[in-house]
C-alpha cells in the first residue's frame, strides 16, 4: 500500500517545473499587472491622471479575463500560445496562459493595495505640487509597499493552484504528477506526497510574504 512507481527524481523534476512556471509567470505577470493596477488607480474618477477612456476599457477587460476559469483560458488561447512560444505543449506552453491568467489578477490586487493608501497622503502630495509621476513614485508606491508584497504573495499562491492544471497541455509540475500518477493510476502515496509538497510550498511562500511585509512596514 505504501509503495509507489514514481521516483524521487520525478518528484524533483515536478517541483522544479512548478517553481519554473510560478516564477516566470509571476515575474512577467507582475511586469504587466503592476502597471495595470497603477493605471486603474490613477485613471479612475478623481485619480491623479483621471482618464475615463482608459479606465472604462481597462476595468472591464480585467474583469472579463478574470471571469474565465484557468482550465478554459488554457485551452481557449492555444493558438495564441503557439504564436508566442511556437508550441502548444510543454512547460513553456503552460507559462503563456499562466501569465494571461495572473496579470489581471495582480492588476486587481495592486489596485486594492494602492486604494488603501490614505487619501490624505495624496492630498499632501498634491499640495506640494508633485507631478502625477512623482505622486506614484514618491507617495503611492512607497506607502503601499507592505500591502503590495502581501498582494503578490496571494497571487503566487493562486498561481501554484493554477499550475496543477498545466498538465492538460503537458506542462508538468507537481499538480500534474498528482493527477497522472496519483489519480489516474490510483497511487495514493503520490497524491499524499504532492499534497504535502504543495502545503509546504504555500506555507513557505505565505510566511515569507508576511515576514517581508512586516519588515518593510516597520509601523
Amino acid at each position, binding site marked *: 500500500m505504501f509503495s509507489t512507481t514514481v521516483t524521487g527524481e520525478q518528484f524533483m523534476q515536478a517541483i522544479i517545473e512548478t517553481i519554473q512556471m510560478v516564477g516566470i509567470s509571476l515575474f512577467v505577470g507582475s511586469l504587466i499587472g503592476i502597471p495595470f493596477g497603477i493605471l486603474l488607480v490613477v485613471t479612475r474618477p478623481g485619480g491623479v491622471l483621471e482618464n475615463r477612456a482608459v479606465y472604462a476599457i481597462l476595468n472591464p477587460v480585467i474583469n472579463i479575463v478574470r471571469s474565465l476559469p484557468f482550465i478554459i483560458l488554457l485551452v481557449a488561447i492555444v493558438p495564441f500560445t503557439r504564436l508566442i512560444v511556437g508550441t502548444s505543449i510543454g512547460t513553456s506552453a503552460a507559462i503563456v496562459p499562466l501569465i494571461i491568467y495572473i496579470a489581471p489578477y495582480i492588476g486587481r490586487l495592486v489596485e486594492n493595495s494602492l486604494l488603501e493608501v*490614505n487619501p*490624505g*497622503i495624496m*492630498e*499632501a502630495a*498634491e*499640495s*506640494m*505640487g*508633485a*507631478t502625477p509621476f*512623482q505622486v506614484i513614485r*514618491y*507617495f503611492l508606491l*512607497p*506607502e503601499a*509597499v*507592505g500591502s503590495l508584497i502581501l498582494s503578490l504573495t496571494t497571487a503566487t499562491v493562486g498561481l501554484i493552484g493554477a499550475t496543477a492544471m498545466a498538465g492538460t497541455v503537458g506542462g508538468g509540475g507537481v499538480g500534474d504528477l498528482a493527477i497522472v500518477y496519483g489519480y489516474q493510476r490510483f497511487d495514493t502515496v503520490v497524491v499524499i506526497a504532492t499534497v504535502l509538497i504543495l502545503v509546504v510550498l504555500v506555507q513557505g511562500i505565505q510566511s515569507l510574504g508576511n515576514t517581508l511585509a512586516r519588515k*518593510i*512596514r*516597520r*509601523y
Partner: protein
Amino acid sequence: MLEIRNVYKTFTRKGITIEALKGVSLNVEKGDIFGVIGYSGAGKSTLIRLANYLERPTEGQVLVDGFDLGEYSASELREAKKNIGMIFQHFNLLESKKVFDNVAIPLVLLKKSKEEIRQRVTELLEFVGLSDKAGSYPSELSGGQKQRVGIARALATNPSLLLCDEATSALDPQTTQSILQLLKRINAEYNITVLIITHEMSVIQEICNKVAVMEEGKIIEQGSVLEVFGHPRHQTTQNFVKTVIQNELTASVQQSIKAEHGRRLVKLHFLGESTTEPVLYEMVRAYDIKFNILFANTTEIQEKTLVTMILQFSGESAEIGKALEFLEQHEIGIEEVDANVFDHSNR
C-alpha cells in the same frame, strides 16, 4: 497676498448638488495670521482648499500675489504650489518614511542635491525642535511631534503662505498651545503669512490678527480679531466668542434683576485706549446717575485688553441717555440688555 473673490463652489454627487460656498470673498494680507472659524459643514475646509487649488472654484477667482490661479497651466500651478505650504489635521505624513525623509520630500520633488537637502532638513528639524527624531518613523511620534514634522515639511520650500487645515483639532490643549506658538514664531521670524481654519475660538484668540466667521457657505462676519471679539454682531459669532470670553450674567445675578422703571441694563465693551482711562469715573462726575456693576471680565487678545462689563444704571432717563452718549464718545461699545428677559416677577 491671498485674495478670494466672490467664489462659489458646488459639488455634484449622485445627482445631488451641494453648494459648499456661496459667494465668499476674503483678503489675506502679507504678514497676517488669518483665522477662518465655523462649525463643521460651514464650508471652511473647501475654502482653504481653494487657496492652493486642491479645489477649483465653480465661479469666482483665487488670486495669490495678484495672480489668478485659474489662469495657470497645470505645470505653472504646480510651480505656484511650491510657494504655498500646507499642514493637515491628520498630519498626512508618509508612514513608510523616516522623519528626515518626510521633511525632505518637497526638496526631492525639486531635485535638489543630497547635500542641500541634508542641510535644509537639519535646519528645519532644529527649528521645530525635532533634531533627535530625524531617524524615527512617524508611528513612533506623538501627535504634536507629527504636526511639527508636518510643519517642517511645509516650510521646506520656503513658502510665503502657510495653510493650516484644522492643524490643532486632533491635539490635546497643551500640545495645541505649543503648535500655535510655533506657528506664531513662523509668522514672526520667517514673515510667512498664515491662513488657519478651525472650529476652536481659542485658536483664533491665541494667534490670529484677523478672523472670518463662516456659516452655511458664507462669511457672515470678518474683521480684526479685536473688533470681532469686542463686538460680535452675528448670533453664531457671539456663540463662538462665548466659548472663550465669558460675557454673560451669571445665573444668580440674572435672578436678582428686576425690570424697574428708571433702570437700564447696558453691556459695555472697552477696547484698547478706553481701558487705560478712568472713563467711568469721569462719567459719574459729569452726570447725575448711579450704576451698579453686575458683571465684569477682562481678556487679552492680540496683546490688547478687552473689557466687558454689564452695568445697571439708575437715575433720570435723560441723564442716563447723556451718560451713554459720553461713553460712546470715548469709543466704548454699548449694547442694551433687556432686563425683562431676566425678570421673572413680571410673568
